[in-house]
């Protein structure tokens, strides 16, 4: 039996709401290794793209093929819209494992490990919904890791975070990227430069460029150049 080739491929994706096209014939081949950062101005379709890749939104046409290690990946997804159950920090982290039927001991071990690793131990009995916005976003990031994903899709995971929390997340991503494919939306060009192996740049529902970080930063594309210069569109 031949092993299926790893790929993250979007082909001819169309998505519209009330006859307004958000994506028209969108295609891209995203690297299956390292960190892919999605950049672009507001409304360019970055979040929509991550939702389609995660499978939360079904495109009207087109094909989405994702294989990592020859299999459909175990995907962790962090949305911009952060919601927690009406439970404490511990039980919010335990939930993704509980519904997969893991036993209590294993859940305890994993949750405590993550709380320790990310310096959140001691807050496990606090209501997750009563945390500060920054802590909520940080906890939400931790929650995406509970089920040990091998594909991590993050939609602006550090938009509300201070330097310390951002550093912890970035360190984790850099440390784990050998075993973890990351697709991450950001508005922070510096963060993209720090983390990216590959950059996907979007504007008005189109993928303008997808290339290795070095090539992207040297891009001849006018829109990319303007974006890199920080000038307004």
């Amino acid at each position, binding site marked *: 039996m031949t092993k299926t080739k790893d790929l993250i491929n979007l082909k001819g994706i169309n998505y519209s709401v009330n006859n307004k096209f958000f994506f028209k014939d969108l295609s891209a081949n995203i690297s299956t290794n390292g960190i892919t950062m999605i950049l672009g101005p507001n409304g360019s379709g970055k979040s929509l793209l991550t939702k389609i890749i*995660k499978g*939360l939104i079904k495109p009207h046409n087109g094909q989405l093929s994702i294989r990592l290690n020859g299999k459909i990946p175990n995907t962790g*997804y962090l*949305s911009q*819209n952060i*919601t*927690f*159950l*009406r*439970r*404490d920090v511990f039980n919010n982290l335990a*939930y*993704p494992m509980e*519904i997969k039927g893991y036993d209590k001991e294993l859940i305890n071990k994993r949750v405590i490990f993550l709380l320790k690793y990310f310096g959140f131990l001691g807050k496990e009995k606090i*209501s*997750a*919904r*009563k945390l500060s916005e920054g802590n909520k976003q940080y906890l939400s990031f931790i929650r995406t890791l509970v*089920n040990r994903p091998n594909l991590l899709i993050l939609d602006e995971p550090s938009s509300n975070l201070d330097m310390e929390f951002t550093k912890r997340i970035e360190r984790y991503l850099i440390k784990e990227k050998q075993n973890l494919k990351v697709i991450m939306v950001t508005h922070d060009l510096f963060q993209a430069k720090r983390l990216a192996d590959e950059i996907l740049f979007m504007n008005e529902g189109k993928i303008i460029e997808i290339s290795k970080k070095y090539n992207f930063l040297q891009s001849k594309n006018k829109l990319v150049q303007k974006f890199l210069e920080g000038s307004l569109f």
Partner: protein
Amino acid sequence: MGVLSDSLKLIFSFDSDLYEIIWLSLRVSFLALILSTIIGLPIAGILSSKSFYGKKTIIIFFNAMMALPPVFVGLLLYILFSQTGPLGFFNILYTPSIMVVAQVIIILPIIVSVSTELLGQIFDEYNEIFDTFEVDLVSRIKTTVFDARISLITCILTGLGRALSEVGAIIIVGGNIIHYTRVMTTTIALETSKGNLSMAMSLGIVLIVISISINAIVMVMKTISKKYSYD
């Protein structure tokens, strides 16, 4: 004042007839409440969590049923379960069983409608968590019901209050038979018409005490839930 003191005497003398009536009332109402909850919560869970054809019609139906006059429920059940009726073979007319059925029909719409609204709000909020972690429908309903448990208990207790104070339906289907189907509300109606005001008043006092107790429990639960709320 004479009526009041006589009725208090009746209560504190632990009159066996009086307590038999109170006990039957509580039994019928609690059983109806348990059945309505067992039937109503899954219906509310599905209505609040799933989109399907006819869902709005079902919600409108249950909302409309909340305003159904109990006397009419009694009349319908009487027609259905009388000897010549299509369900007459059950032979439960003028028994406590049909009183439970009548109360279920009266309480169920309250439990379904209020719970659907309550669970719907939480479900909408949790939807992205459920989609993200690929939670199946049964687990979605379980999670939502669990997280809404305190508010749901409040809603269920409202149903109990409605059941205990109901008179129109059970007097028709129960027949107000002494030592068998006579409950607090039907006894109050009967004893008042007979002029036995102390018996009627004592049951009225018991009803008020129960009603105040239910409301106090609701209030305490709301306070506790606020204090220990994860919201």
